[in-house]
């Protein structure tokens, strides 16, 4: 009960602020008779969401499936490479410059190439999403796997621990807070990657919906798609936060 009260208190201020913004927005569009293709009113957007809910949900599901798959792919590969880096400076020196080059190349520049190579289906979007998520996990996991207290390493060595034991019982758990920082950053990036991929060539997904509705000046649909993307990304972020609280409770700040 106390916890619910605390959560309600936390939510009260942002909820009031949102309500204020919506009232001002609704009033401005009505009083100034703003054309809906320029700025649809909140009630119009809500009505679009309600009427097109099925279609919106289907497009969101496609985009989120691409984003989550790309996210998973990037994190598995990124963590694998980080493990290699943590054990071999030579491997890091050989590969890291290319990882940085990949990071500094905008995914929007690579996306057309991905469509040429992998077609307009889901694969090119998954890869666009994976490319954008790859760097945060690579950097953070490498750091987390390496950032082990030297005395802890000495302790393990004094107990004749094998390399596998040092990895499983020391480096891996030590890296988890760093890994989850990367995962949280990547949740929103993965949705961006999927939508950018859809902009270039797709028949479904929120990127496709945003592009088509902008061509037709259906700003109410465009806003509904943006809302869906924000909602999907937030839900994804919240899921990772909950997973972090379950798996890494020891890294949470100590409550007074």
């Amino acid at each position, binding site marked *: 009960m106390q916890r619910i009260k605390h959560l309600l208190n936390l939510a009260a201020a942002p909820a009031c602020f949102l309500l204020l913004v919506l009232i001002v927005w609704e009033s401005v569009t009505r009083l100034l008779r703003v054309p809906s293709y320029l700025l649809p009113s909140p009630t119009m957007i809500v009505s679009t969401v309600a009427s097109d809910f099925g279609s919106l949900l289907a497009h969101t599901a496609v985009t989120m499936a691409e984003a989550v798959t790309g996210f998973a792919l990037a994190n598995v590969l990124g963590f694998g490479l980080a493990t290699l880096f943590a054990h071999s400076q030579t491997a890091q020196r050989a590969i890291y410059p290319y990882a940085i080059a990949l990071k500094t190349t905008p995914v929007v520049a690579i996306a057309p190439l991905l469509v040429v190579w992998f077609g307009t289906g889901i694969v090119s979007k998954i890869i666009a999403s994976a490319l954008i998520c790859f760097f945060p996990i690579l950097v953070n996991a490498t750091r987390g796997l390496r950032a082990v207290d030297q*005395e*802890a390493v*000495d302790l393990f060595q*004094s107990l004749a621990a094998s390399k596998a034991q040092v990895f499983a*019982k020391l480096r891996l758990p030590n890296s988890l807070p760093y890994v989850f920082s990367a995962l949280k950053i990547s949740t929103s990036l993965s949705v961006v990657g999927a939508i950018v991929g859809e902009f270039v060539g797709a028949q479904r997904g929120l990127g496709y919906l945003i592009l088509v509705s902008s061509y037709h000046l259906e700003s109410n649909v465009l806003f509904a798609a943006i809302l869906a993307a924000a909602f999907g990304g937030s839900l994804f972020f919240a899921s990772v936060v909950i997973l972090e609280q379950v798996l890494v409770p*020891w890294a949470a700040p100590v409550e007074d």
Partner: protein
Amino acid sequence: MIELRNVNKSFGQLSVLANINLAIQRGEFVSIVGPSGCGKTTLLKIVGGLISPSSGDVIIDSRPASVARAEGSFGFVFQKPVLLPWRNLRQNVELPLELLGRNGKSGAKTEEILRTVGLQGFEDAMPRELSGGMQQRASLARALVFSPMALLMDEPFAGADELLRDRLDLDLTELTQRLQQTVLFVTHSIPEAVLVSTSVVVLSSRPGRLKEVIPIDLDWPRAQYRGSRQHHDLVQRVRHILET
């Protein structure tokens, strides 16, 4: 028995230890004192088989130090408690048993050792829920749980305030006397070294050479000697050797 014969250690051009000869019998509590950078920690790590000497031999009960380490002969206690934050107290204390493949008899042994260091009832507590003193006791319990041949302690109470340090020193001596545990103890504090040890090894400044081994012939328990004339005289003697 721990025996060092003509041990030298250099890191590149830098000579850290020179011609160390030392023998430590079972059940002895030997403190190492010396100026900063004289190689005290290096000496401890050489005994524990964590680093190899550049020349000379370290023999632990007729075996090389590296072999003794692989057999789980040393319980290290560091300046920081080095508790793994994702493991509760029991899991931290039992870590050596897991790594050495001795999990079979862990339960009763853990209970016993936690009782010995005064941490019974805190088995499920996470490290961050423990005070600094409790964390250091936990690291001592972890070093003792697998009954090592020797405890190797590197300024274990340096981070504690003076009152806590005094308490931990006396608890440690009471415990090691009761267990007849061999201890090699690195410290910066001469009064602490005199209070807890059966002998004090004095090293010179870098490269660390063995200046003198001073036997501490005080009775147990040692609490009675804190602030006493005998303690003061021994401290002055060690200080004089260090300064000359």
